[in-house]
């Protein structure tokens, strides 16, 4: 293995990029009330790689939708770059989305089926104020973006997204982010639908992208091994609350909360024995 150990940076003094206070989301009313996200506080710094880890149904995706401004918080405030976020009108939302972009779990449904790949990438250039550029300049930008994600732009022109494989689509999604250069990238389980080999490629690209542009990456995942590898700080989520958070090394190697301990013990490992005896088949019933 090529030993190029990553430098562990300290982000505690970096300026805040996105933070929240008492953010809550409640679905339903009265007896059928479900608290999906329960008064969570968070502070994501500029240039930080943050992971939010939790099982299915712990409220990760609900939180990410609120961060993206796709759904409104029932309670609580979200601050973007120190100022209270305002997404009350469509125009303001569009302004906000220049600062935050997302990659989703399912690459197959992230693209407009009727748009060619050229159009997808051209849209990104136009959004960044590149409308006045010449054809050649636009072409160069698109080639550069594709080159960054190991794709060949010449092979992609005049193709539709469904002609690509899942891994290629996910990489094209990253090419979009490369062109848009947002302040924050929210990645909602981008690697759960690709195999281990493409996963390594995609994670590498995300890390490079972060280093190159200095954006904040919020990575949502249920794979704690992946979170440990990739992130600077980790938030562990259980039933809509953060039960533990801090630097990746501290949280994962010396977990305090019982839930974190259980999550870590449930992951199959290669240097330690995987303890199956603690599993009670009937407990789930």
């Amino acid at each position: 293995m090529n030993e190029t150990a990553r430098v562990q940076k300290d982000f505690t003094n970096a300026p805040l990029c996105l933070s929240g206070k008492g953010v809550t989301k409640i679905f339903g009313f009265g007896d059928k009330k479900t608290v999906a996200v329960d008064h969570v506080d968070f502070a994501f710094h500029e240039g930080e790689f943050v992971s939010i880890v939790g099982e299915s149904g712990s409220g990760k995706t609900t939180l990410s939708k609120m961060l993206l401004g796709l759904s409104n918080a029932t309670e609580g405030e979200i601050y973007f770059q120190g100022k209270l976020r305002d997404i009350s009108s469509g125009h303001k939302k569009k302004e906000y989305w220049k600062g935050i972009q997302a990659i989703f779990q399912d690459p197959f449904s992230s693209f407009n089926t009727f748009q060619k790949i050229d159009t997808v990438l051209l849209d990104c250039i136009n959004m960044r104020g590149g409308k006045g550029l010449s054809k050649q300049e636009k072409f160069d930008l698109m080639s550069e973006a594709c080159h960054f994600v190991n794709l060949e732009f010449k092979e992609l022109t005049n193709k539709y997204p469904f002609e690509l494989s899942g891994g290629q689509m996910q990489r094209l999604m990253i090419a979009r982010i490369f062109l848009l250069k947002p302040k924050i990238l929210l990645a909602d389980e981008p690697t759960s639908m690709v195999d281990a080999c493409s996963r390594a490629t995609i994670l590498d690209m995300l890390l490079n992208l972060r280093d190159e542009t200095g954006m904040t990456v919020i990575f949502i995942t249920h794979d704690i091994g992946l979170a440990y590898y990739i992130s600077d700080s980790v938030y562990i989520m259980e039933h809509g609350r953060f039960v533990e958070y801090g630097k990746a090394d501290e949280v994962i190697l010396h977990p305090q909360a019982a839930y974190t301990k259980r999550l870590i013990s449930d992951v199959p490992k290669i240097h330690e024995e995987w303890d199956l005896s603690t599993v009670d088949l009937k407990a789930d019933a």
Partner: protein
Amino acid sequence: MGKVMLEVRNLKTKYVTRFHEDVYAVDGVSFAIEEGKSLGIAGESGCGKSTLALSMMGYYFPPLHYMSGDIIIDGQNISGMDPDTVRKTILGSEIAYIPQAAMNALNPTQKIIRFLEDVIHAHDPKKSKKEIREMAEARFAEVGLPLEALDKHAVELSGGMKQRTVIAVSTILNPKVLIADEPSSALDVTSQKLVIKMMRELMEKGHVKSMLFITHELPLLYNVTDDIMVMYAGQIVEKGSAKEMVFDPVHPYSHGLMGSILVPEEGTRGHKLAAIPGAPPNLKRPPDGCRFAERCKYATADCRYTSIPEKPFGDGRMYRCVKSLDELKEVYSHE
């Protein structure tokens, strides 16, 4: 040496596309599983893992076609059998299959008990409903599934529960070979552990004689199976015991694959993930030489044009590369 439960000899199958082009998805695969043992198959998307699983059931439907080779289950050769006979006498009782999308494998309009009735009636039409219910209740209690689940519809069960129900249904007739095609890929770690524990228990109690486990998650394979094979572009490139494969891979492809392991253990954070660039070759026109040559860091002109035989070494291990063991060790040590 235990009794050989499943033996596959030089199996070749192909897909025929709409334009009558042949895609050679499984190209000369041979292996054997002994009684009480489990074998894992690793490899990236599109390398033929799932096709191999489908081919092994002896139940072919277009676009998948059988070409040549033998599939021997406990002494009985099922290749070339009439599909209807296969369905009635082999599937379920000799060889059982857990599909990748087990979540969608259950018909939403029927109760769970109906699936069990279906499976049992296909083999023994005379069994009464009462007998079937007794059988089902005994098995469900044994594997820790709630008995109420029998009278529920699939939508009422959670993802992990659905997956375990599918396993219980497909192993009700005590198959000799169980093929599990990525049974836990869509589950979170806790449900995954339950599924694995249940499969282990079925093996320990002798309800399932041997198991073939397909996944791309190597840490999982290491913990579940006795032996691991690595597949690439329709061929097996390396075979060995789980421990040898994870800590001492020989073939450049398995070497790369082992570099993509992610586990929450101390010291794994520093090293760089070894991603293998490029994509698998087009199997409509498989390369003459080594199939991995295009993406291999250590490829030479030799690799591309000479076909490479399987090279056995050590204790039942095998690899498929032009280079000798010492040469490979030499190149890895320079990294």
